[in-house]
């Protein structure tokens, strides 16, 4: 089963994200957002120079950390015209994230994501011992 899937939403985009570990959850959320910006982008062979960025986030809890992380990545996507596909963590706790994200330049986005929202976001461990959450993107 893919780590993210789109669920119905009247006006925006709702993603359900599941993964075995917290690190995998953050990666799945990143790739889910990137797939909205351009479907299949992260699966394509691309010979262009990789774009690498350092990112540090602090939040009150893991849910806030994930939403703030995605928001920060989205901001950099818009400013640098890059879609990010990979992440290497140097630290990931309930409230702190330090990582390097990597991606490639893109000449267009398919979806104009205004914001990553906290609405319905709730990172938790389900009965199958997986991390899961909903993320809604305002578009």
């Amino acid at each position, binding site marked *: 089963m893919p780590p993210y899937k789109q669920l119905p939403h009247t*006006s925006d985009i709702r993603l359900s994200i599941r993964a075995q570990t917290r690190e995998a959850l953050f990666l799945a959320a990143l790739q889910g957002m990137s797939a909205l910006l351009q479907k299949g982008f992260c699966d394509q062979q691309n010979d262009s120079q990789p774009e690498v960025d350092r990112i540090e986030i602090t939040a009150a809890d893991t849910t806030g950390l994930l939403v*703030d992380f995605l928001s920060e990545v989205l*901001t950099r996507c818009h400013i640098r015209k890059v879609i990010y596909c990979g992440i290497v963590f140097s630290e990931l706790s309930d409230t702190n994230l330090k990582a390097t994200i990597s991606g490639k330049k893109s000449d*267009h*986005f398919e979806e104009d994501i*205004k*914001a990553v929202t*906290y609405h319905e976001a709730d990172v938790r461990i389900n009965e199958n011992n997986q991390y899961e959450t909903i993320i809604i993107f*305002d578009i």
Partner: protein
Amino acid sequence: MLVPAYVYCKEEMLEHILSDRSLEQLINVASLPGIEKAAIVMPDAHEGYGFPIGGVAATRWPEGLISPGGIGYDINCGVRLLLTPLNYEDVAGKLELFSQELAATIPSGTGKGGEIKLAPEEMDEVLRMGAGWAVRNGMGNEADLAMIESNGCLINADPAAVSEQAKQRGYDQLGTIGAGNHFVEVDKVSEIFDESAARSFGIRKEQVVILIHTGSRGLGHQVATDYLRLMMNVMSEYHYKPRDRELAGVPFNSKEGQDYFNAMAAAANFAWCNREIITYEIRQAWQAVFNRSGDEIQLLYDVAHNIAKIEEHIVDGKPKKLIVHRKGATRAFGPGNEELPEKFRTTGQPVLIPGSMGTASYVLVGTNKSMETTFGSTCHGAGRTLSRTAVKKLVGGPQLKQALRDQGIFVEAGSWRGLAEEAPIAYKDIDLVVDTVHESGIALKVAKLKPLVVVKG
């Protein structure tokens, strides 16, 4: 709840409003610190983030809560209506050409930048001056400024309160529409409901008019994101714990509250400058296609529907200064209000309500009933009822374009997918929404507009 929650809707629309969390969100709003009189939702309501879309709430000045969730991510998303001197029969033969010229002249689409690349010092001027910056730089008409809510400039705007990231997102976005439900639409006036108000506004049947619907683009989205995150981290210092994270807020008179209010004003100014420059682009396209001066196109009015303002309203029989949050709600001040340009003092302000592609849009007039009951506010549009995924299963972009063409509507869209997502079936019946506010007296119908050309991202 600290105050009552009021819902404006007809019985046949209630099912839509009850189908999502709009009312739950309205109840949360009715519990905000410092809220006055009532939390209100308009008939185009749907579930938003923190506040419902279509929501109006006023908190006590100066210590009441200010919440970015009460304004929305697209700060000063709004509408302006341009009046041309020509009638439908004068332009009918050139509408397709005009649609193509508009699409070529006005950049639209996801993340698309425009021709204008601001230097950092120019960005700060835009954020301080709003629409006046466009006029000063030859991309707008001086006469337009008086016909914009707040003259197109909130004076408390502070560029220093706007993050560098937000500014970077805006450097190349002036004069662009963006994507989603934002558009430029050429309409003809198909029906007049109030001859006297229409005459005052300079509107007549069969006249060609042009609607612009867009906001502060990526700059405004970033301001909202920045301050929501900031407020989430500091609100416990003010002993505020909302029921919903997106209701994060701080006292208006706190340092963070003032910074947000001043950054929001800067983003609102950016949006007004954006709509002024899009007007300039439309005037250029008009000149190119019709070989007439673009300056003959007059601005009727420009209104925000995502904004917070300091206003005085009557509460418990006494005038009170309030922080009025409008999120998907249009200011609808009635006759006699000193905020309005002289031209509208006897009628009340024009209220511009865009519908969906292929349906209708409306011009209404603000009333004193809205001043008494809804903090001088009314609805803002049709409101979605179908998800983007659901509507794409029902209609494809090429078929929709042809169906609209068969109705005499020329559409220029950045993508088939984006076009299909905005199909009219995805929206509430705009006639019902407008009839609701008309019958309740919080804005009165003046004219109905039928689309001829739609340009969207």
